[in-house]
């Protein structure tokens, strides 16, 4: 055990000093915050300058109402109107193609963001066109669509003889407020926060497993290729070596997770949104630790027989993909948290930790399910560790071609 600690110390101290580790320590949070928050920020970010929208109005009235409504509803942070309507006049009502040409030119010249064609038929079939270089600006198209729709509905209702004040009430915006019911009573929740808390858990376990796993495989491959392994094996037992490596490199992984957690907490406190509840985190903790050990064993078992960096990268690549499966399924799991498929997937040890990371924030599984998945995970972790130690002991000294499944099986069976 003393030697295992000496090995752990070496692996930790020597790697924590390296430039590569320090860079990854800084880059990972930047990347994560970027990938997780930036797109949302950009989409919901308020415009800073008014957008000018052209209108070819064949109804001769809608454009003015639209301009007024947009002016009422949407303002820039500095109080200026967010959208400015610029009418594009027609020489004659039928000459739409000329008007389009003019408007297209305005777009290319950058004078307008895009333009609407409001045909006279819009009252009947409610169809109108928005043309722009960029039709992917969902926020803008959604707002215009909604405003035009409201105007048309209002007009139709008016023509049916409804009281204008009543109309206003009737078509007032409907918004859904989501409330999650759990044993602790009701709490407000929404898709984004559920998704993000799952995302954060998965990223945490992912970073831990990938950091440690890759370091494990790479250190084994390095020691094999420069034959240091023989000196190590002549000084300490294979088990000490294995335990020392896993301990030392895990410490590295935890340094990374710790850094991220501190950054995350600081951000959360600053913006006042803590979306991870402590109780959820506590339930996840055993999955986290066991899942981590399970994967560490898998990395050792798969990494020990390898001799080159390329092979090592391939293998770690596959394992990382498996880790991400539950995140891809997250949307579907949220819609069907009680589905038997979700339960079955939760029992596959490769998926258990990340499946639970997705499931727990949505709906805490039953106690029986938690206990039984944990038992399955514990047993598979022990089995994986045992197998990995066996493979490690022999494979770490063998060179040349990667053993096939049959040869690995012989290794595992041998005493």
């Amino acid at each position, binding site marked *: 055990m003393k030697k295992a600690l*000496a090995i752990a110390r070496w692996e930790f101290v020597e790697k924590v000093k390296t430039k590569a580790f320090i860079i990854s320590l800084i880059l990972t949070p930047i990347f994560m915050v970027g990938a997780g928050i930036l797109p949302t920020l950009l989409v919901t970010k308020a415009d800073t300058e008014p957008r000018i929208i052209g209108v070819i109005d064949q109804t001769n009235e809608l454009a003015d109402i639209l301009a007024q409504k947009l002016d009422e509803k949407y303002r820039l942070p500095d109080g200026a109107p967010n959208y400015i309507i610029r009418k594009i006049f027609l020489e004659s009502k039928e000459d739409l193609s000329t008007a389009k040409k003019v408007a297209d030119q305005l777009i290319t010249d950058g004078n307008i963001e895009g333009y609407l064609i409001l045909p006279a038929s819009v009252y009947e079939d409610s169809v109108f066109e928005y043309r722009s270089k960029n039709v992917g600006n969902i926020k803008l198209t959604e707002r215009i669509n909604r405003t035009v729709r409201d105007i048309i509905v209002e007009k139709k209702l008016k023509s049916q003889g409804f009281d204008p004040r009543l109309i206003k009430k009737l078509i007032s915006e409907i918004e859904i407020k989501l409330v999650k019911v759990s044993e602790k009573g009701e709490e407000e929740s929404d898709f984004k926060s559920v998704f993000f808390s799952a995302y954060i858990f998965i990223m945490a376990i992912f970073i831990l497993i990938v950091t440690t796993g890759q370091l494990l495989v790479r250190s084994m491959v390095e020691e094999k290729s*420069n034959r240091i392994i*023989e000196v*190590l094996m002549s*000084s300490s037992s294979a088990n000490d070596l294995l335990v020392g490596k896993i301990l030392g490199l895990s410490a590295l992984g935890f340094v990374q997770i710790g850094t991220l957690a501190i950054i995350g907490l600081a951000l959360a406190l600053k913006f006042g949104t803590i979306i991870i509840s402590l109780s959820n985190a506590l339930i996840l903790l055993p999955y986290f630790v066991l899942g981590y050990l399970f994967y560490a064993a898998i990395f050792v078992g798969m990494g020990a027989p390898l001799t080159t960096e390329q092979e090592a990268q391939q293998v770690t690549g596959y394992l990382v993909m498996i880790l991400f499966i539950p995140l891809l399924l997250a949307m579907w799991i949220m819609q069907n948290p009680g589905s038997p498929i979700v339960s079955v997937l939760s029992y596959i040890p490769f998926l258990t930790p990340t499946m639970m990371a997705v499931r727990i924030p949505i709906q805490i599984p039953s106690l029986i399910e938690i206990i039984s998945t944990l038992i399955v995970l514990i047993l598979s972790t022990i089995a994986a560790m045992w197998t990995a130690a066996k493979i490690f002991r022999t494979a770490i000294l063998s060179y040349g071609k990667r053993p096939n499944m049959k040869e690995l099986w012989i290794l595992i069976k041998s005493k």
Partner: protein
Amino acid sequence: MLSVQNIRKEYSTVVAVDDVSFEVKPGEIFGLLGPNGAGKTTTIRMILDIIKPDRGKILFNGKVIDEEIRNKIGYLPEERGLYRKNKLINTIIYFATLKGLSQSEARKRAYNLLKRLDLLSYAERKVEELSKGNQQKVQFIISIIHDPQIVILDEPFSGLDPVNQIVLKDLFMEMKDNGKAIIFSTHMMEQAEKLSDKICLINQGKVVLNGTLSEVKSKFGQNHIHLEFDGDASFLKTLEGIDKLLLYENYAEFEVKDHQDIDKIFPVILQGLRIKKYEVVEPSLHSIFLQLVGGEKLTRTESR
């Protein structure tokens, strides 16, 4: 000190080591010789307890090798490698602590040895900045820093310039004088011949020759004797037990057919002649190696 008894190691397709036995005593330099793939490395790995023999025993002072005994063994593997990115001094200290030394003791000894091997100025440098020969010296330091009772060196001289070969040889001799046992494996027979007290030649997993250098040579026969003398030596032509006689006026060369007979032959010669110079010219280890491993005269080999 070290007793290897009938060890055997089988891999799925080949028998790597088959019934190998030998003894190494304190203060001995033991040459483990043999061509590539003969089973030297496997034998060494079994002594180091990296792999277990399928059969047979390896005892150190009568005890099976365990954690404590591991700490008394030093090892320099044939294919050299070190952590490239780490500081020299840290690397040495790490390996020393793995052999049971404390950090402070390891540091003290590391500096001593670095000084001794003229590497002190590199102590704080990264390993990759060192030349190959210097890296090899570092590995040598690692193999002896814990003051082992036995050092096992796989091809210790390959890649070293003559100056460093001498530095290394002197260290060997010093260790030998301090009662340490040194096992070294090599293809270079000249080196083995100069250094070894005992040798063990392995081929295809089996011991082909085993014993002290002179034992081996004499057992192997082919002992040529060169004589310078005064007197009439014609009686040599009829003397029993000698062969391939070349007789000159006061010089003769012949081969003793059987080494055991030399005690009978010599008194006869001494009676008839006044000897000025007597020389036993033995076959070199190199030629023995070639003959044995080359497959010639296999009938004369001893395999125990």
